[in-house]
């Protein structure tokens, strides 16, 4: 900031109508109801983006104060201290200190506190006070505190902390306008002080990371303030303890957890199916309708098979994403997510995964797209990236049509080992191969990328709360919106690119064979054919892999196109019979092995790009999965040939 004698906060202040907009940042412990307060303040006037260069989500909203002043509110990631330990917390620290590139330093910081759990946030408030930026303490959930008979002397607390203290109930919008007024008054007082002394009072100058001794000192100070201002609850919350006795029980706890996960998986897997079918049918109908109106040609193909089909392939993910996030946000708001991580820590930890990785990985059995989006429940960056990298190895539902086609065409329908279906066994083997390789890859990622580093597991288990339906719905809708706007555009452009490769140039008049042969996809397929010959793939199979990048189940249609088998209810059976003629058993098994590992899904790569905010991780994912797929197909093919199935 410039030491100028004006009241303007600094050179980065935008000019024009927004010049007098107040900038406010929300800081608080996790589970303090910070997001609920942000929603209560800003309503639907929110913008979500990423901070430059990092995966941290930036949430900003607008509130008009009772006096009519525009106030821009920034919701910073939750933290216990300014001593940042994760990329999220680095953002919080730098934003508060005013060091964050491209970000105007906040005029006022609102420190959000759970009124029933003040000990740690008081220390954070003292840290904020030491930074010297004007602050206001929002004492959230005061209704619960009152119910518990917890007496808080807010005047004394305000005097001790040197900042206004405002009681709020974010979910009922209580205390919101008082909070905004207090923030405005604080900013004006600060500006006046700046003008008087001729230099800005606030700022993050000279902040250093507190040592262990300094943390102890601040904690003792917080403890003293707590004793002086807060009388312990007369009717403390006993529900949390009683529920934990069951939910963290070695037997009942696990049983209930498995039950919850089962219901969630069923809802994502089966519950979303009818809506997804409806969406697919709707887009097919739209495409057919448009096709009738347009003359045959490249334009019709672009609109129907490129754009409409592409938009359809984006929207079709929405039901799964919304259902999954409804569960995740409910479990998070109730306070159960931390318990699930506690119960699963040892099981997942063995493979070097975080306890919270379980939900994203389970969801990936339905589809890796919502699964990868669900990795936001994992705070630690490394744990999150590891989970993202292995999520597509979980056998998603889009692989099922491919597996079914090949297995029913090549694996004899007979019983082995006393009554087990051989086809079922192969199916199970493919699922198991996916799961085991995911664990192995997670273990290897930890060794290679993170050099065995493991994060400490140290986590607050919040008191159970009844979730606020309006907040839950708003947050679920936000996830759907983010998916459509950010991942959706990337997926759509990839779909159009794949359409282009498979359609252009068109088939010359009077030429024989399927049109795809003459397109760029055909050219690429023929070119990389020799590379895939050692794993038993014919050039037709190689060509089919390119449209198959659109989605895994598209491979079935793509094989149909290449082998010129088309249309009708019976097409899958006809195609199976045709493949059984043209492929050797060894090639078919190699194709299955390829599909367990290969990154045959452009949407997954697009979502990884969006979630990690760089092309680095999707490229690494593409590379390692292709390598694994090649290796697995090679071993399977060579083994099968050696056993006489070539």
């Amino acid at each position: 900031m410039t030491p100028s004698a004006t009241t303007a906060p600094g050179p980065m202040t935008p000019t024009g109508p927004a010049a007098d907009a107040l900038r406010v940042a929300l800081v608080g412990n996790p589970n303090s109801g910070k997001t609920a307060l942000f929603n209560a303040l800003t309503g639907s006037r929110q913008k979500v983006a990423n901070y430059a260069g990092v995966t941290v989500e930036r949430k900003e909203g607008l509130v008009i104060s009772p006096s009519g002043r525009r106030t821009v509110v920034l919701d910073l990631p939750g933290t216990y201290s300014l001593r940042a330990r994760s990329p999220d917390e680095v953002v919080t620290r730098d934003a508060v200190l005013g060091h964050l590139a491209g970000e105007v330093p906040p005029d006022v910081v609102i420190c959000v506190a759970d009124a029933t759990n003040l000990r740690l946030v008081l220390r954070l408030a003292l840290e904020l006070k030491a930074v010297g930026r004007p602050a206001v303490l929002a004492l959230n959930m005061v209704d619960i505190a009152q119910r518990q008979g917890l007496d808080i002397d807010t005047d004394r607390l305000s005097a001790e902390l040197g900042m206004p203290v405002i009681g709020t109930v974010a979910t009922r919008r209580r205390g919101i306008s008082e909070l905004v007024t207090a923030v405005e008054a604080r900013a004006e007082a600060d500006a006046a002080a700046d003008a008087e002394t001729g230099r800005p009072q606030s700022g993050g100058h000279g902040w250093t990371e507190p040592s262990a001794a300094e943390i102890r000192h601040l904690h003792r100070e917080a403890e003293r303030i707590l004793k002086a201002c807060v009388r312990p609850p007369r009717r403390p919350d006993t529900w949390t303890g009683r529920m934990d006795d069951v939910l963290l029980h070695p037997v009942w706890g696990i049983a209930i957890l498995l039950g919850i996960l089962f219901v969630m998986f069923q809802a994502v897997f089966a519950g979303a199916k009818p809506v997804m079918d409806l969406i697919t049918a709707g887009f097919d109908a739209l495409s057919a309708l448009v096709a009738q109106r347009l003359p045959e040609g490249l334009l019709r193909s672009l609109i129907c098979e490129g754009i409409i089909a592409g938009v359809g392939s984006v929207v079709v993910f929405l039901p799964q994403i919304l259902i999954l996030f409804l569960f995740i946000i409910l479990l998070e708001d109730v306070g159960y997510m931390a318990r699930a991580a506690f119960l699963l820590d040892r099981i997942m930890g063995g493979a070097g995964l975080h306890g919270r990785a379980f939900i994203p990985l389970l969801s990936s059995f339905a589809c890796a797209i919502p699964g990868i989006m669900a990795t936001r429940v994992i705070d630690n960056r490394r744990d999150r990236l590891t989970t993202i990298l292995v999520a597509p190895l979980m056998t998603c539902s889009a692989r099922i049509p491919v597996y079914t086609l090949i297995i029913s065409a090549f694996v004899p329908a007979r019983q082995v080992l006393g009554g087990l279906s051989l086809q079922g066994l192969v199916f199970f083997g493919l699922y198991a191969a996916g799961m085991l390789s995911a664990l192995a890859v997670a273990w290897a990622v930890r060794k290679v990328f993170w050099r065995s580093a493991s994060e400490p597991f140290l986590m607050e288990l919040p008191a159970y709360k009844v979730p606020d339906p309006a907040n839950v719905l708003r947050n679920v809708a936000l996830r759907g919106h983010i998916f459509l706007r950010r991942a959706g555009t990337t997926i759509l452009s990839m779909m159009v690119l794949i359409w282009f490769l498979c359609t252009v140039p068109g088939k010359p008049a009077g030429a024989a064979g399927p049109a795809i042969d003459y397109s760029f996809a055909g050219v690429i397929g023929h070119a990389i054919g020799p590379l895939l010959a050692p794993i038993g793939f014919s050039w037709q199979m190689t060509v089919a892999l390119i449209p198959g990048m659109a989605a895994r189940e598209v491979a079935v249609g793509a094989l149909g196109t290449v082998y010129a088998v088309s249309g009708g209810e019976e097409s899958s059976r006809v195609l199976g019979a045709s493949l059984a003629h043209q492929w050797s058993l060894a090639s078919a098994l190699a194709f299955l092995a390829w599909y367990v590992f290969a990154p045959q899904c452009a949407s997954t790569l697009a979502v990884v790009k969006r979630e990690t905010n760089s092309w680095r991780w999707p490229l690494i994912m593409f590379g390692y999965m292709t390598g694994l797929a090649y290796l697995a197909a090679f071993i399977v093919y060579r083994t099968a040939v050696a056993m006489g199935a070539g």
Partner: protein
Amino acid sequence: MSPVNSVPLPPTDRPSGPAVEGLVSLADGRRGLCGVIASVGAAPLASDAVLADELERRLLEMGFVEGARVEILHEGFIGRDPICVRLDDMRVALRRREARGVMVRTDPRP
């Protein structure tokens, strides 16, 4: 898994009284252990990733401070790890290896 994880729980054949005058590491405690934190220090084999000093600061920030009351409420079902403790009026989950540096003065037995 690292050897630290094969938790050295107090052998049951030993008298249940702790080794050093009522002082026991939180990492060795069983469900029901109650007491006051006597010291929070850098545990030697604490964690491979985070330096011992960093772990100490994280514990302090979570409220594991000298004088705080702790009680082990729950234990994980594999190897009794991680543990869930009541810490003053909060509940915190942590692994035993992270709890190693937290020494607890247990309440005198009634």
